[in-house]
């Protein structure tokens, strides 16, 4: 266990950024978002405020180029006989240039336990067969420095999913950190974490492992007081497809849903993407970008399928998180970060959905 004064964080950050890219929460136009560290960027309040988007972009960016296609034309003077000059087929060649994979290490600082769990969810999808090379490369080169939640908010409910926001060292992070008084405690967990620590050792002072005990206890007690941490997941999970899919609760609660992608895009675990082509100056760029199952044109096929109404789309998102994903990977794909709870324009969210089903069950029970 190490420690560093919080007032010296900027020195730490620039030291890390010297050797590799550093991604961390940055304050920009009044909002906290993960971004690349630059000299002079605003890091005021980044230790205690929740970012709008999760850190998922670091491994699975909202937009990324997959490859470029270009057309090459053989000049007339390189032709063997004149007749070929007019034959476009002979003279045209298409070349495909794949985008290079991430090949340099980078550090992502300030992820919370829930965010790290989110990465774990993404791993299930992208690192199992068929493996997503772009994601895999980023994952291999990324070093996660997680931060314990000093001030959990009322929208937080990660503990419901068995996540401990007080102790990121239990997560899949490479380094765990805590705010203790005026200092940041730093604890490498993995080899990658150790290596990073070594590079910056000169800035760190050593500390006792017990230094963070009080902070862990404090966070745990705060979590206990938060309203949503008592949420019950009974009735969700593996094997509940038919029961939940056919429930009429969806119809009752979906109406306010605007079909926007806010919940999807702030979510640490949503992993759907669309692949599109863009005509550039001299070729075609194939890229992928996040997509939202809430959008009316999500996986839209020529025949008008897949989901034609907003209630279907609405159901899909929550069924995926709470039923389908557990079915397939044996874990929920919600991590209780509360971002959708904070950001939904219509104040609709996964907590309300779970509660609505709970009420329904209670009422059904009362009626029997």
């Amino acid at each position, binding site marked *: 266990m190490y420690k560093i004064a919080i007032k010296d964080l900027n020195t730490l950050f620039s030291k890390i950024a010297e050797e590799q890219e550093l991604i961390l929460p940055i304050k920009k136009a009044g909002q906290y978002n993960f971004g690349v560290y630059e000299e002079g960027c605003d890091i005021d309040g980044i230790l205690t405020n929740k970012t709008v988007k999760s850190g998922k972009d670091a491994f699975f960016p909202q937009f990324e180029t997959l490859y470029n296609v270009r057309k090459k*034309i053989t000049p007339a003077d390189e032709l063997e006989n004149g007749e070929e*000059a007019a034959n476009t087929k002979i003279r045209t060649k298409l070349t495909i240039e794949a985008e290079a994979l991430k090949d340099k290490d980078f550090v992502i600082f300030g992820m919370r336990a829930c965010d790290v769990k989110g990465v774990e969810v993404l791993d299930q999808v992208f690192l199992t067969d068929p493996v997503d090379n772009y994601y895999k490369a980023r994952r291999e080169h990324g070093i996660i420095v997680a931060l314990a939640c000093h001030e959990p908010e009322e929208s937080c409910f990660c503990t419901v999913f068995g996540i401990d926001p007080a102790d990121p060292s239990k997560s899949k992070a490479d380094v765990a950190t805590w705010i203790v008084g005026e200092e940041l405690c730093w604890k490498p967990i993995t080899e990658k974490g150790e290596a990073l620590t070594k590079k910056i050792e000169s800035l760190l002072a050593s500390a006792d492992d017990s230094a963070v005990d009080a902070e862990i206890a404090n966070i745990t007690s705060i979590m206990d007081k938060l309203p949503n941490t008592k949420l019950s997941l009974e009735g969700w999970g593996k094997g509940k497809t038919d029961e939940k899919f056919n429930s009429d609760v969806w119809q009752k609660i979906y109406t306010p849903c605007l079909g926007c992608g806010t919940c999807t895009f702030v979510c640490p675990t949503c992993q759907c993407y669309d692949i599109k082509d863009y005509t550039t*100056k001299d070729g075609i760029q194939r890229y992928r970008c996040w997509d939202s199952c809430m959008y009316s044109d999500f996986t839209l096929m020529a025949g*008008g399928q897949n989901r*034609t109404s907003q209630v279907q789309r609405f159901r899909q998102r929550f069924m995926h998180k709470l039923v389908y994903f557990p079915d397939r990977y044996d874990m929920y794909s919600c991590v209780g970060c509360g971002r959708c709870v904070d950001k939904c324009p219509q104040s609709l969210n996964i907590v309300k959905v779970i509660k609505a089903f709970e009420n329904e069950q209670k009422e059904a029970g009362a009626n029997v």
Partner: protein
Amino acid sequence: MQRIGVFVCHCGTNIAATVDVKKVVELVRFEPGVVFADDYMYMCSEAGQEKIIAAIKEHDLTGLVICSCSPRMHEKTFRACAEKAGLNPYMVEVANIREQCSWIHKDREEATEKAVILARAAIAKVNLNTPLQEGESPVTKRALIIGGGIAGIQTALDIADAGYEVDIVEREPSIGGRMSQFDKTFPTLDCASCILTPKMVEVNQHPNITLYTYSEVEGVSGYVGNFDVKIRKKARSVDMSACTGCGECQAKCPLGKMGKIPSEFDRGLRTRPAIYMPFAQAVPAVPVIDRENCTYFKTGKCGVCAKICPSKAVNYEQEDEIVTVKYGAIVVATGFDIINLDKFGEYAYNESPDVITSIELERLMNASGPTGGHLERMSDHKQPKDIVFIQCVGSRCDDEKGKPYCSKVCCMYTAKHAMLIKDHWPDTNITVFYIDVRTPGKNFDEFYRRAVEQYHVNYVKGQVGKVIPQPDGSLLVQGVDLLDNKQIMKKTDMVVLAAAVEPNKGVRKIATMLTASIDNNDFLTEAHAKLRPVESPTAGIFLSGMAQGPKDIPETVSQAGAAAVKVVGLLAKDKLKTNPCTAKCDPMFCNGCSTCANVCPYGAITYEDQQVRGPGVNETRRVAVVNNALCQGCGACTSACPSGAMDLQGFSNRQITTEVDSICR
């Protein structure tokens, strides 16, 4: 995927001198969709066209790009050429590499590069072209004239003489309009009735003309060639087929003697009975009962006219009748009126009966008028010895009191009035206050000079500020003589105001029904001020007479003839070809918000409840529908449409964006 052929023209040396034609061919060959590229000395020549036709056949081309002169020059030629080879003519695009490239650039490399870019844009566009078909719509061979004044009469006669059926709708009980109120006409001093009445009779007797007098247009639907017009025939209370026009009823109507109902025709200078013909020569010569004033209709008592009618034609039970008739063309000839003078208090028009308007003077001088043609003051029935004419009353006035335009006819009719008065009563003293005397017409200035030189009418350059009725019955006129720089205070017996003309009040309603546009002054707008002066921008609507702008009788008659020719030209066609580059609405995307209809200058967009079926959609809702016969393809609707539902065929959103893209490559 299209199979496009690109043909680059040398145009002799016009293009080839600055553009490396061979290089253009070499570079565009590899554009997407291009399967063939060639150049030729003169693409538009017979041989050049043969080459194109041969290539279309040999390479099975589906689209053509011709890099040559401006499409305004030869687009039609190349389209016809494509059609000859069995290709849809709208699969042809022209890249303008002469007027907009070779002729303006000197640097060969630069010009060649630009030519390639222009060609690429055209190729990109053709890739998205779709075959378009010219539509056809049938033509109903019948015309409607709204308004039965001299403009309407002349238009109707000319169309009817050409062998087409014409209907005239006139609001008043008789046709004839303003001209029938006039005494003489300038500059020849013909008697107005003498030249108008025969025409009115001719209209009445013409086998191809149907008259709807005392009738109004209630509603118009349809489009050029196919209008459906609802006409309300107001109840006349007199059976048209039974009435002989003997006039007994008018003479016996008790209200006639009471003198309470002012005659509209005589501008209130005398009264009329409740059952009346507006004037003796009315066509049709059938009276109407004015139900507002008729004692029978007010109290249920009287019934004199029915009792004395020798042919039992009076029918109190008659009701308004609405007929719907189909027309191929509509002419608006709604004419004019003079402005209300209430706002010009300084001229004392409402204070003194001896201050009159020029139209009232016409009635006073007309032999069939209230005074039998004897000019007298309405106050004391004495003959005026001194008369002041005031010009430009409400004309050329830029505030809300009057009209900003020149009424055009006043200078001439005032000269006419002055001379006629001097002719009859030579010792009358006449002063005309004018701002400018405008006489641009054949024999017009001569006419005006005669008033000055021969009749010694006193023309004063200046305006009258105030007319003050005096206790002795005379009028004190305060004006100015600008040339003498003196203020004039002058006693006179009568003041005649040349009040500004304005379009008939009803025109606004009619224009709305027809979706014909009107300007700020309610005059109907022409399709093009210079080149299409008798057509409305709305197809199938034509303009005749004062409704379009101030004009005198000869001008009105010639415009009437012109409108008639345009109508005949339209009716002579069995089918109308419609421009295929029209707007098209995709009901899947249409919100039915009406934005497009608000900007359409042709009223070509209507809304209907349609069943919309598509992926995940099956509902009935309000969507825009473009009438291809009316749409002229301006595309205003497409840029107004927020959802992109409205698109223009031949210049679609994607076609233009793809041109932008390829230019910016």
